[in-house]
């Protein structure tokens, strides 16, 4: 494996690392995996997951990977413009695909992301036919009747929850959100903005479109009170006939940032195996 620093763009370039398999390890010369930022953490990823995954994909699946920082995150300068962060993310992934396409002749891409990175992977796939597959960790999903039951039933039976609810209703206890949870003054703490979670119907339409196109999708759901059982994603988007295009993995005991080494190893191996299989299929 060989790693090199690559900058994409002339002004305010996007900074990234290209990992390439050695010549005898390359399994498919036209495809690359692009790893996207999650939140405001720079391109090495939460708990260094993106570095570990990129190297595993390059060494185990024989596929080049590129992990980079969106503008304004990590080592990439902020760019001026009128685009929202969501729109800019799609533009920048496409800019990276254009660059790698011209330079390395890659013309098919698999996009990987955790949380907001997953959302960006989904949106880019909608906009660009070069995206062959997406790997989304805690991507868009919504509650189903079954997950509502899983979520609320234990709460209805919990005296502590009722006590807490009464305190909140009486104004004696405040529910902390966003930066408040940290207890750190907002001016000293930066958190990502997740205010743009789209309506379920929009995502359902998007998934139909992607599924019809034949996009391969690997969804990994981690420990999350809003995702309570393996088939929640399929139940949530029941109208989409995913068939073989969709693989879902559920690791209910893993943290959202995959902080435990065993969880990280299992997820990295599963992604590497999925990508390897996808290359052979494609």
């Amino acid at each position, binding site marked *: 494996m060989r790693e090199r620093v690559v900058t994409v763009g002339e002004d305010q370039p996007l900074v990234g690392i290209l990992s390439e398999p050695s010549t005898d390890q390359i399994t498919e010369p036209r495809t690359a995996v692009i790893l996207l930022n999650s939140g405001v953490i720079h391109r090495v990823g939460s708990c*260094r997951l993106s570095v570990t995954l990129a190297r595993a994909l390059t060494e185990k699946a024989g596929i080049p990977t590129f992990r980079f920082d969106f503008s304004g995150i990590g080592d990439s300068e902020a760019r001026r413009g009128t685009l929202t962060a969501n729109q800019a993310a799609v533009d920048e992934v496409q800019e990276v695909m254009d660059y790698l396409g011209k330079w390395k002749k890659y013309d098919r891409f698999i996009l990987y992301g955790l949380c907001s990175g997953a959302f960006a992977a989904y949106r880019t796939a909608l906009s660009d036919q070069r995206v062959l597959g997406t790997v989304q960790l805690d991507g868009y999903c919504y509650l189903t009747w079954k997950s509502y039951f899983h979520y609320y039933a234990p709460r209805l039976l919990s005296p502590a929850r009722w006590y807490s609810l009464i305190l909140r209703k009486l104004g004696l206890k405040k529910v902390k959100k966003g930066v408040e949870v*940290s207890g750190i*003054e907002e001016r000293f703490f930066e958190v990502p903005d997740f205010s743009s979670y789209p309506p379920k119907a929009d995502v359902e339409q998007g998934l139909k479109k992607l599924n019809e196109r034949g996009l391969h999708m690997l969804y990994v759901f981690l420990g999350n009170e809003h995702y309570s059982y393996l088939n929640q994603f399929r139940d949530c988007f029941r109208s989409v006939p995913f068939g073989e295009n969709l693989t879902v993995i559920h690791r209910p*005991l893993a943290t959202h940032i*995959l902080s435990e080494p065993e969880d990280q190893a299992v997820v990295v191996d599963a992604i590497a195996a999925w990508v390897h299989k996808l290359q052979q299929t494609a």
Partner: protein
Amino acid sequence: MEAFYFGPSESYLFGVFHPRRGTNRNEAVVLCNPFGQEYLRAHKSIRRLAISLADLGYSVIRFDYRGSGDSAGDLTNISADQWVDDIRHAIQEALDMTAAPKAALVGLRLGALLAARAATGNPKVSRLVMWDPVLDGAVYVDGIRSSIVEAQARGSRSRLTSPDGTLHFNGFCMPPKFQDSLNGATLQDIVTEIRVPIAQITSHETDGFSQLQQQLAGQPGFHATLAPAPHDWNYVDHVGGILWPKPVIDAIEHYFSQPAH
């Protein structure tokens, strides 16, 4: 800004060079990261500091130690001594790139302790700036161990150690070799061997910081600033929020804006 790889091919290091702008201070600066999750949470602050110091006329290198960030490998069989070697590589790289005769070291938390070791007897180091330094390597490791125990009480699945003694904390592993290499490393002892000006810039008060300040007070060029700001670099939320203690960054910038001590 120029990002690149440097150092030995088997343990290549990711570095970012920020060339000076305007005034030539004729001194390079090497920024030394903290460990593990602290490093992730400090990336933005370290980058901001690099940009600010470059604007003041210092050419700056920040880099990832081997087994961390975008640098080669993982932490298996890595020791803190090798991270001190990495700081020495970064110093040499900075001097090669800038033609400055010497480099100042700025270290955050564990980075400060390691920078102090790299400064000891090193004629290429002009001064040492310690930002909320880890004062004692063994105490630091014990603190990580205690934090894991406390987190377990709150429901964390983090184990205290692997069978081989590796500590797992906040998504990062510290292997036994690394822990062992921090044993016996105390700033109280190390600073007695350092012959260049030292600055201690802190975000909060502790007895340890006060004692070190008293110990260093008589040394030529010693500088201390208290710039109150949040300092829990190990605070981890589920959305990946990052600490942004601007008052401390401003205090370090202010220190470097003065004529060399």
